[in-house]
C-alpha cells in the first residue's frame, strides 16, 4: 500500500476481500486505524463513528460469489 493514502479502489477491494477489517473498524476504530498505519486522531475517530458499516457489509453480501448459485 506504500505511504500514499488508500484509494477508493483499494477500499472496495478490502470490503470484498477482507470484510473483517470493517468489523474491526466499527468495534474498535482507534485500534483498527492504528494497525492499518494511520494516526488515530480524535477527528478521524469521530468521523469513523458516523459511517454506516451496515451499508458497507451489505455490499460484501450482495457481491459474495458463494451466495450466487447460478451457473
Amino acid at each position: 500500500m506504500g505511504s500514499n493514502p488508500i484509494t477508493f479502489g483499494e477500499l472496495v477491494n478490502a470490503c470484498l476481500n477482507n470484510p473483517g477489517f470493517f468489523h474491526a473498524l466499527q468495534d474498535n476504530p482507534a485500534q483498527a486505524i492504528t494497525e492499518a498505519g494511520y494516526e488515530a486522531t480524535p477527528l478521524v475517530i469521530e468521523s469513523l463513528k458516523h459511517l454506516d458499516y451496515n451499508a458497507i457489509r451489505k455490499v460484501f453480501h450482495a457481491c459474495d460469489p458463494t451466495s450466487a448459485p447460478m451457473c
Partner: protein
Amino acid sequence: MSMSECILTSQIDAVVDRIGADLGASSPFLAHEVLHWIRQISPGGEPAAHFLSVRMFPILRLPEYVVQSLAVAPDDGFHRSLISSTVHGYYYIRLIDDLVDGDRDLELERKILPVAGYFLSEFQFGYQKHFSAEHEFWQVFRRLWTASTVSSAEDAMQRSVGFAEFERVSSRKFSAAGIPVAATCHHYGRADLAPAWLDLVDGLGRWSQMVDDILDWHQDRGLGRATYFLTEGERQRRREESLEEWILREGCDWGFDLLNEWMNRLQESSAQLGNPGLMEYLAGRKAWAAEQHSTLRNGLAELARLAGILGQATRANTPCGAGTTIT
C-alpha cells in the same frame, strides 16, 4: 415456504438421494465425493435451497408456469421426470462450467469429472421416457442444447464483450433452460406456444446474465474473465478514473437502469403468456434488483466517505503490514 416450494424441495432431495444411490451402487466412495461436491456448491449445503435461491435461474419453476397457463391437469409423472432431468442437467453444466471458469479449488471437480457423463445421460433419459425418437421435440432439444454448449464455450474464450457479443453469446448460455419449457409445451400438445415461452427464457437469460455481470464484477475481474459490464466499465470510465470509481459515479446506475429497462420489456411481453404466477415472479425479481441497486449504491457511497476520511488522516510511521492491513 409455499406448498409449491415444499413439493419442489422434497422432489429435489429425492433426485439427489437417487444420485447418491445410483453412483453408490458401484462406488460408495465416488457417491460420497459427488454428494460432497453437490453440497459444496449449494449455499448452506442444501441442494434444494440452491435451486430455489433468489439468484438461481428458475429452471424448475418455468415448466410449472407453462402448465398453469394451459389450465390442464398436470401429469405428475412427467413433471417428476422433468425435475430429475433438470437437476441432473444443471449439475452437468455446473461441473463443466466450474472447470472452465476455474474459480474454486478444482481438485474435487477434476476427480469427479467422468460423472459428467452420468449427469448428461440422466438429463436426456428424462425426456426419452416421454418422447419417441421421431418426436419433433428432439429438434428443439438439439437446437437449444447446441446453442447452450456453443455459447458457454465461446463465452469463456472472449477477451472483451460488447453488446453484440453479450446478445449473441453471453446471454445465450441459458438456452438449455428452454428445453424443459419446450418439452412441457410439446407434452401437452401446445407446441405452438413454445416460441413465446422460449422468448421469455431468452429475455430472462439476458437479464440474469447481466445481474451476474454486475454483482460478480469483482470476482470476474480477479479471474480475468471478460464480461459486458467490465468491458463497458473500461470503455466508459474516465482516463484518470479507476473501475471502482466508475462504478460509483455511474456504472452501478448504468447497469441497474439497463436491468430495469429489460425487465419492463420482459414484463410487457410476458403478459400475453397469461400466467399470474410468472408475472408475480418477474415483479419479485424487479424489486430484488432495485434492492441490490440501492445496496450497492449506498455501500459504495459509504466506502467513498471512508476513503475521504482516510485521505485526510495522517499516515503514521508504522509500516503497513505490521498489524492489520486493509487490503
